[in-house]
């Protein structure tokens, strides 16, 4: 009879105690929120990849279709959206490069390369890539 009353009780296999977490647990604290926002930047990465593909795709469909696409890019709501996407992409870059020293342990002469140097190296790589891309995109036009 007692077993009927306590539904959590099963003989020999007591149910484990588990604290129930609210679904929006990550709203409570700044660090948790930052973690979720960082994870959600992956959406902007996928969006950018598909938009880039679409832009190339439209270019192959002749000048008219390409100009239509360019016009769409110029509309105010789309520019606003893309500013948000750009900010998310920057957040992705900064947080990703920020993890590099933790993920990458470089030993030089038996000593570990300081985190700051690894981080600086990655920022140099980012700067270099950016310069090359700007040079290509602005040089072609």
């Amino acid at each position, binding site marked *: 009879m007692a077993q009927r009353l306590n539904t959590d009780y099963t003989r020999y296999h007591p149910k484990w105690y588990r604290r129930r*977490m609210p*679904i929006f647990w*990550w709203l409570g604290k700044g660090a948790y929120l930052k973690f*979720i926002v960082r*994870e*959600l930047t*992956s*959406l902007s*990465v*996928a969006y*950018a*990849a*598909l*938009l*880039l*593909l679409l*832009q*190339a*795709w439209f*270019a*192959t469909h002749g*000048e008219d279709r*390409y*100009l239509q696409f*360019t016009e769409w*890019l*110029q509309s105010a709501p*789309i*520019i606003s959206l*893309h*500013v948000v*996407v*750009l900010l998310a*992409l*920057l957040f*992705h*870059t900064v947080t*990703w*490069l920020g993890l590099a020293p933790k*993920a990458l342990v470089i030993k030089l002469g038996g000593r570990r390369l300081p985190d700051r140097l690894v981080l600086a190296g990655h920022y140099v*790589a*980012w700067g270099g*890539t*950016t310069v090359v*891309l*700007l040079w*290509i*995109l*602005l040089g*072609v*036009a």
Partner: protein
Amino acid sequence: MPRSREPILWALFSAGGMLSALVFPALAFVLWVAMPLGLVEPLAWQDMIGLVRHPLTRLFLFALVTLSLFHWAHRFRYTLYDGLQLYHLNQLIAVVTYGAAVVLSSVAGYVLLVVL
């Protein structure tokens, strides 16, 4: 998802994270903010098609698009898993996220390596 596939998925996630981190801010700023706003001269169609048809550009774009999609799939999978605690839907979420990455990568391969 069997454990043995995890390192491959993580490698794709990681490569996509790095490549997208390095190139997307510049690309997004120039192509989708600066050019539409008229801050810099927009790419004329002839220039764009010339750039996009170059074999190196196509290979680069294919790598970028594919790895970015797998980066998204892996990260988004765990965002749903941990963020919304959908532990019981683990299998379904994995199939949908990685599946989307595979399908869209195939489209990218078709467009960039076959059509262009």
